[in-house]
């Protein structure tokens, strides 16, 4: 099996030759593989595509994430973004000061300014042998970004109607970007909904403000490509509801116990995760990586429906030998 076939087998509910390995390598880590600075690649999509392709070629994992920073210059739905001098793009101002500003919300044109060309470049580099995922923000994450995270979460109690209306108003943005990614050639869409983690908001607020928009968006996007729903940190209390959104894959982070996760969702969704990107890949030893991979495989490999990954983005300071070890031990312990 080649890498792409491996991932497709898992998505189809079949047992592959070995567990696919698709770590979260994005604009935080990939630029250094080609000796470039993060802000340089965030400002230049072709540079980012080159970096992501080079990282995949170097480490030999099965899939690549087209995290081009579609939120990078010039804006995220109208909010100015600062890139230069930063490790990651920073939204420095917001456009939604209140209800009256809802009409200012811009639905992005993903094709404007050649923004999708780097995605196509990455798809071409992946060829037929490797799997390509394209990343889009969920409506809830867009809403938090354009309102400002602090004001957005303060609104949960101050003006819950505004929260609901703003999230709903952001659904078109998620759909238009997701569709563009598929048109550009990605094999699957990663919907990032990081702020719904129960490390940040209660399960009740997830249901009240985010879940319906996830369901609505995924219902459309899954007709085009499988959807991976990404929630960082602790998502265990909301995992069964995440599994009910229609997502084919749940990307889970290190605080979630894989055995408990599998018990909670059964085999109706694929689990992707959940090696600790910071504690293990960045700060651990090669032996720590081996142990983490071995335990993850023991927990989630049986029966298929598992993709080995990090729980979140690999940090820029992660040692090369640890990223290599993730793949090496993933192959060693992933054979069926």
């Amino acid at each position, binding site marked *: 099996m080649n890498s792409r076939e491996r991932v497709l087998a898992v998505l189809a509910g079949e047992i592959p030759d070995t567990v696919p390995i698709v770590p979260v390598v994005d604009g935080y880590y990939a630029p250094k593989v080609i000796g470039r600075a993060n802000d340089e690649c965030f400002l230049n999509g072709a540079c980012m595509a080159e970096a992501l392709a080079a990282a995949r070629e170097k480490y030999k994992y099965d899939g690549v994430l087209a995290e081009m920073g579609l939120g990078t210059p010039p804006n995220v739905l109208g909010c100015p973004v*600062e890139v230069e*001098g*930063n*490790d990651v793009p*920073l*939204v*420095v101002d917001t456009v939604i000061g209140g209800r009256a500003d809802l009409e200012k919300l811009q639905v992005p044109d993903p094709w404007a300014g050649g923004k999708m060309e780097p995605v196509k470049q990455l798809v071409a580099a992946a060829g037929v042998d490797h799997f390509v995922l394209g990343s889009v923000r969920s409506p809830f994450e867009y809403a938090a970004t354009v309102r400002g995270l*602090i004001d957005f*979460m*303060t609104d*949960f*109690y*101050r003006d819950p109607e505004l929260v609901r209306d703003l999230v709903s108003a952001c659904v078109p943005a998620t759909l238009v970007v997701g569709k563009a990614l598929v048109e550009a050639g990605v094999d699957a869409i990663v919907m990032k909904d990081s702020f719904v983690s*129960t490390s*940040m*908001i*209660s399960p009740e*607020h997830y249901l009240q403000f985010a879940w319906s928009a996830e369901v609505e968006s995924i219902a459309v996007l899954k007709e085009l490509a499988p959807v991976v729903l990404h929630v960082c940190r602790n998502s265990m209390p909301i995992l069964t509801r995440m599994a009910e959104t229609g997502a084919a894959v749940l990307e889970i982070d290190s605080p979630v116990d894989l055995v408990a996760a599998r018990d909670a969702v059964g085999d109706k969704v694929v689990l992707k995760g959940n090696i600790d990107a910071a504690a293990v890949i960045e700060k651990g030893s090669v032996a720590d990586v081996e142990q983490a991979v071995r335990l993850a495989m023991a927990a989630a490999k049986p029966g298929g429906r598992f993709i080995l990954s990090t729980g979140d983005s690999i940090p820029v300071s992660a040692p090369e030998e640890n990223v290599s070890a993730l793949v090496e031990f993933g192959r060693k312990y992933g054979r069926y």
Partner: protein
Amino acid sequence: MSEILEQFQLAVIQGDSDRSAEMAEAIIAEGKATPDEIFDFLAEAMEVVGSRYETGEYFIPEMLRSAESVEKAMGILEPYMFERRHDQTGVIVMGTVKGDIHNIGKNIIVSALRASGYEVHDLGVNISTDKFINKVREVNADMLMLSAFTTSTKLALIDIIKSMEREGIRDHVKVISGGASHSEEFAREVGVDGFAKDVKSTLAVCRRLMDEKRA
């Protein structure tokens, strides 16, 4: 008086901004509470909020709700507290460092410092090293207070300290850093003169460092 302060404390814990404002007015009307008493009740309230977050009863929106109730109350109490204690004087430049846009904790600290008598120049969030240094020079600041919520801002803090040394102003200006991620070890690593995690410790550190400056 303690009943009013207890009600004030409860309003903060529950994140009831209207009630915290009402209690702030009641504190002023009674006219008996000292700034220290108010800060003590406030500190206790925020400790309860913090521990409820740790146990998973509260999440970030609930903490923000409480913080908003504090901000609203402090806006009312500031002149009252200033009248009763403005023996702590000094000029402070403050802001959140580059790469960090958290501001709610900083805003509460700004209120508390002004209420205590300090002249505070709040630059806002995501502030570059140059902006901090230029403002410190412009207002002849006694202290530079840097809000850094996450450990990823360590490099920004170190850059500011090194730039101050290069500019020859490090010896004249006390530097304090603050934020949820801070610890003694973190403060030592970045080279600041003091660190603080909440209102009470901020005021104590400022008082100590101003005393050192004057000595």
